[in-house]
């Protein structure tokens, strides 16, 4: 892991991600460590063509280098219950 790599832990549970707002720098590698607190959730960040399954008890790592600035939504793409459609968060990429 590079010294400047951004490692961010994200917790998924019905029906939210914590933290719900994440800020990273463009061009600096990012590792998202995804964990579920309760059930099978999904992670989908379409802007960077990323998705992953998040299962309880398993840390899922998603690595990428953000190459554009802006605010991007990631969301759960595994139907997880009554509230699933509200399960999203924001990734902000800055210079």
């Amino acid at each position: 892991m590079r010294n400047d790599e951004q490692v961010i832990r994200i917790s998924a549970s019905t029906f939210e991600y914590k933290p719900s707002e994440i800020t990273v720098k463009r061009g600096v590698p990012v590792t998202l460590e995804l964990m579920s607190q309760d059930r099978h959730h999904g992670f989908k960040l379409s802007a960077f063509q990323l998705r992953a399954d998040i299962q309880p008890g398993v840390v899922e790592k998603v690595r990428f280098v953000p190459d554009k600035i802006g605010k991007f939504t990631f969301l759960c793409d595994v139907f997880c219950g009554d509230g699933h459609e509200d399960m999203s968060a924001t990734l902000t990429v800055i210079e």
Partner: protein
Amino acid sequence: MSDLMNRRDLLKLAGMGVAVFVSGTTVRAGGSAQKKDESFYFVQLSDTHWGFNGPNINPDSQGTLKKAVAAVNALDEQPDFVVFTGDLTQTTDDRKIRRDRMAEFRDIVSQLKIKTVRFMAGEHDASLDRGDAYQEFFGDLHYTFDHNGVHFIVLDNVSDPMAAVGEKQLQWLQADLQQMKHDSRIVVLTHRPLFDLAPDWDWATRDGAAVIDTLMPLPNVTVLYGHIHQEHHHMTGHIAHHAAKSLMWALPEPGSVPKKAQIPWNAAAPYKGLGFRNVEAEVAQAQYEIEEFSISRG
């Protein structure tokens, strides 16, 4: 047909994908006399979400489905059958409540005059338990039936919470289609759109492209689905896809707002955006006339 209550504009869709919008007067192939051997009609209801409770979204959540049943029963000409395209009930984690809702839904729709009723699951009905409860009450998640020369295929793209049909069901579909003649009239009934309407809004099927590729060699295929809570029409090649309105709440047009959200109830226009449809199958021409109905206020 001219005496049907709450008649609205008639959208006629030719088998080769040409849409002709006809408004106002009755239109029926061959004149006013119904040709039983060549056409029939059925009613599609969708996304009834029985068990939903949200007064700001639908203050008549306990009454809308019953009104729809009454409206179908009041049609001058009864359909040959009725089909529900998924999300019969509102999802819940509680196994007992899930089954209670399915039982209540079943009891309400048993009041339909027409006793031939076809069901399919939506993700609200089947995604949390792989369709176990749904199958207890309504039978198979995917199946086929034939009616007056049209082959209906009910596809399940909801019991997998990842919104996929899956390889096993895809093989089942391929085997079924191999038994069809090239010009067979086929109607696919499913819940989610098979094409990528709005994937970030969950308006897609993960392996929908494979399903469409399987259907594409056949020239007379039409898809009816629900899930998106609005009328929508789309072509993939020669295959027409028609989404139906919900009977609980409406949703915005794809991409029209940053985040998908239930459209609040409008007291000045109750039941706006909710409704059901008649589908008249003109078998010989492989054409389908779709007529949308709103919910009456009574």
